[in-house]
């Protein structure tokens, strides 16, 4: 006897998988030395179709596969988020590999695989499916991180990422066994029902801490943050971009599902822990970033800092905090990806990621300089840009939860972050360039940069509609319980 499966709910994932299969087949039949980037072009067509399809799914809710796979407002929001991330990452990949002799077709396929993983993470309602989705995402990330076989940094980064990733996966399963042991289920719904009727038990808490290791690893929170700077620096830049936005957001979905959903009724126990983690994470990231000489490493540390700000939302344990996380990530997407597009274009022209080589970028390419400035200022959280309103909502949620001390710690961190972001801005805008050779920006990259900059400014000024999106995503969440 088979349960009825609602294929409609899972149609986006089916489509993505179908596209991946088609691309694999096409890749087999392509001539080995083909100059044309067919896979890249087809990927874009596929993405465009998927985004249109995604819009039609806006009111889709329900569960299928016996409740393992769910579709809710939060999943819908984040699937759109991941598709948007992929638009940028595919464009970056096209540009990044133009200058390299490496074959890139497999890279596209791995990106598609990562997208499947991320979409399944957003829709998982069962710990086993969640584990499989995380692994799908992470394994493709391992391979992509070590993709540049001749670059020792890339290999080293891949190795580090693999070892720590495998370790946290082990933690996850170990922790899950405790949770299963206590609740007799891996299904979110059943666990939540158990949690709501029982007092906090040490066994579940122990399991939960181990499971959180995976979340902490994905989002780069203290004490699982050590890999971040090395991997960010060593990985091919499109992968760094994906890690810093896509993979981080995937980590936050898990966090949201666990702590705003399943275990929300024990909020009182973990609120303090998250507040402490948040403070430690933002201090680690921002203080570490102050002394960096490599821009990818700097953004690595800064992404730890942003994970710290985002954890403030988790510490509040309120609907406002959840909406703030969603909104912040949306602004962070455009902001961070704009920076990585600039880094790739600069790397192609200059073969360097050192901040001192960015001196006088404004004379060499005003567009790149402007995009980088907007991105840095938005990361620093200064209006009228997207990052500002994200920080504002997070601070609001924190103050509302009565965590004034955390808000002040965040305030101090914001000041520190302004310092190092502005140092880069100063290099770009004030210092004299070492060479005057202009940096070419192709038309497609102009569009991508334009999109990112428009996103940064529009979200920063017309916050209302985007905040509504973030709040709707939060309110319609499956198992939402506060």
């Amino acid at each position, binding site marked *: 006897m088979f349960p009825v499966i609602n294929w409609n709910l899972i149609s986006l994932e089916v489509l993505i998988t179908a596209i991946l299969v088609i691309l694999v087949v096409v890749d087999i039949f392509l001539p080995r030395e083909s100059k044309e980037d067919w896979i890249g072009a087809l990927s874009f067509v596929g993405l465009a179709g998927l985004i249109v399809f995604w819009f039609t799914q806006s009111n889709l809710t329900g569960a299928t596969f016996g409740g393992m796979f769910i579709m809710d407002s939060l999943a819908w929001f984040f699937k759109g988020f991941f598709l948007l991330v992929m638009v940028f990452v595919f464009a970056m990949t096209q540009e990044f590999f133009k200058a390299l002799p490496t074959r890139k077709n497999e890279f596209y396929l791995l990106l598609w695989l990562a997208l499947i993983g991320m979409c399944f993470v957003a829709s998982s309602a069962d710990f086993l499916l969640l584990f499989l989705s995380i692994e799908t995402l992470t394994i493709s990330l391992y391979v992509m991180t070590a993709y540049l076989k001749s670059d020792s940094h890339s290999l080293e980064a891949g190795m580090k990422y693999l070892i720590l990733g495998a370790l946290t996966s082990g933690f996850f399963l170990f922790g899950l066994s405790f949770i299963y042991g206590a609740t007799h289920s891996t299904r979110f719904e059943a666990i939540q029902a158990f949690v709501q009727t029982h007092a906090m038990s040490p066994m579940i808490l122990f399991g939960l801490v181990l499971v959180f290791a995976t979340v902490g690893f994905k989002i780069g929170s203290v004490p699982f943050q050590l890999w971040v700077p090395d991997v960010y620096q060593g990985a091919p830049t499109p992968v760094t971009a994906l890690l810093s936005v896509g993979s981080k957001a995937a980590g936050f979905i898990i966090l949201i599902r666990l702590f705003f959903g399943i275990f929300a009724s024990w909020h009182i126990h973990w609120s303090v822990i998250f507040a402490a983690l948040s403070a430690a994470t933002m201090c680690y990231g921002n203080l570490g970033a102050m002394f960096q000489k490599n821009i990818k490493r700097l953004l690595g540390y800064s992404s730890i800092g942003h994970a710290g700000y985002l954890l403030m939302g988790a510490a509040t344990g309120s609907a406002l905090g959840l909406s703030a996380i969603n909104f912040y990530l949306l602004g962070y997407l455009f902001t961070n990806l704009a920076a990585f597009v600039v880094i790739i274009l600069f790397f192609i022209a200059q073969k360097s990621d050192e901040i001192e080589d960015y001196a006088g970028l*404004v004379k060499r390419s005003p567009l790149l300089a402007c995009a980088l400035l907007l991105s840095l*200022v938005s990361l620093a959280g*200064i*209006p*009228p840009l997207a990052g*500002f309103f994200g920080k*504002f*909502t997070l*601070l*609001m949620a924190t*103050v*509302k939860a009565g965590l*004034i001390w955390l*808000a*002040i710690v965040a*305030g*101090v961190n*914001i*000041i520190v972050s*302004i*310092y190092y972001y*502005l*140092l880069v*801005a*100063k290099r770009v*805008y*004030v210092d004299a360039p070492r060479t005057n050779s202009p940096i070419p920006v192709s038309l497609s990259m102009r569009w991508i940069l334009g999109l990112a900059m428009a996103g940064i400014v529009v979200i920063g000024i017309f*916050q*209302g509609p985007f*905040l*509504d999106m973030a*709040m709707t995503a939060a309110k319609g969440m499956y198992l939402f319980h506060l």
Partner: protein
Amino acid sequence: MMSYPLSYILLLPTLALSVLFAVPSQNTSAIRRIAILGVLLPFLLSLGVFFTYNHSTGGFQFIENIPWVVPFGISYHLGVDGINALLILLLGFVSFAAVLISHHIKERVKEYYILLLLMIIGTYGAFLSLDIFFFYFFHEVATIPAFLLIAIWGSDRHEYAAMKLTLYLTAGATLGLIGLLALYFASGLQTFDFVQLQYYLTVHPIPLNVRNWIFGLVVIGFGVTLTMWPFYTWAPVGYAAAPTAVSMLHAGVLKKLGAYAIIRFAIQLMPQAAHTWMPLIATLAVLNIIYCGLVVLAQRDMKYILGYSSCSHMGYILLGIACLNVIGLNGVVFLMFAHGIMVSLGFALTGFFADQTNTRNLDELSGLAKRMPFIGTCFAMMALASSGVPGFANFPAEIMVLLGAWDHYRWQTVLAVLGVVITAIYMFKAIRLGFHGPLPSRWNQLTDAQTALQKLPYILLLAALIIVGCFPTIILNKIEPASKGVLQYALTTK
């Protein structure tokens, strides 16, 4: 345009800014013309707003209110009473003069005017907003342009100065923001709208201990902007390094945002807490006046003199705020205007001669008045205004502050009067050293401001000082109802 003048004050420079993006960067004269137009029109509008503001009805006028972020209760709410109507007029004067005197900028002209306009828009927005969120929003919009303007076009130690200024101001503003957010939640009203909050808080006061520390956060946070002692050190360094126009805007206008925020969000929203904090504020005010005043005496760089002197004069503003009476507050608002005009005139004049002499050090300068009679005359008048000589706007302002303070803070008032003497000492010394005496032969080629257009910014600022100084009622009758509005609850709840 006449139905929504306040929005046009923001939109017109924004329009000019967008046009500037499209103009090719080689075409500097067109860029300059657009920028001048972009500040002239809002200046004229702010004049119009100020003089059509009906002070007999009082309250907020020219109101525009559009809901912006509904779930948080954020609205695009603009409106002016006597206080901010005067402050946008001040910004109109200073921004117009600042753009006019910027002709000495020859490098990266387009970026310069874009950033300058952005800074001016942010400042206008902050003064016009009756929504706490938008006040902060616009206040911060001005930060990054100021950083870049100082870092790119500044002089000695400009990178250090730019960073210091930005970090101090943002730190202060963030502290203030946390306080205001706490107020938002403590009120339980779910709105950032200033007017609604004020009505609500008078009927449903929040507990006094909560109010006390929120008040502290707001006052210290925005006190940094106001260069309250001991948070003033960013200012002289920043002004000295900044290009002239930025010094003018920052010392003349942006700084007053701090005082404005304290008056609006601390005093007007939490009048009861004000009584707890005011003795401390009065003491800090005296430290500002005397300590910074004595520091000026040791300075030789003209921009540092003006910078420290402006910190010192902020003491009168703080002292006036601390009085919590109508005459004191009248004096504060009056002084914000008078000091803003005076100090920006001082920076403009200093910039004018320093461009040619390449030094601002009074030990090296001498006899400038021989080659620059016009600039020298203006400078002398600026010095007189600064020392509180009758006939200039600063005189009635300082008198009102001192009169207001006398009943509450006896010894502070006496020390504050001493500050006037200190001001006179350093200002007259600056005139004697810089403008009198023999002219070194290497400066025989110096030129005065010649054309009418060159003289216009200085004349404009001086005219404002003198007209307001001789006929203080022009602005006083607009300030008075607003001051009463601010203090109506502070006075009744004492």
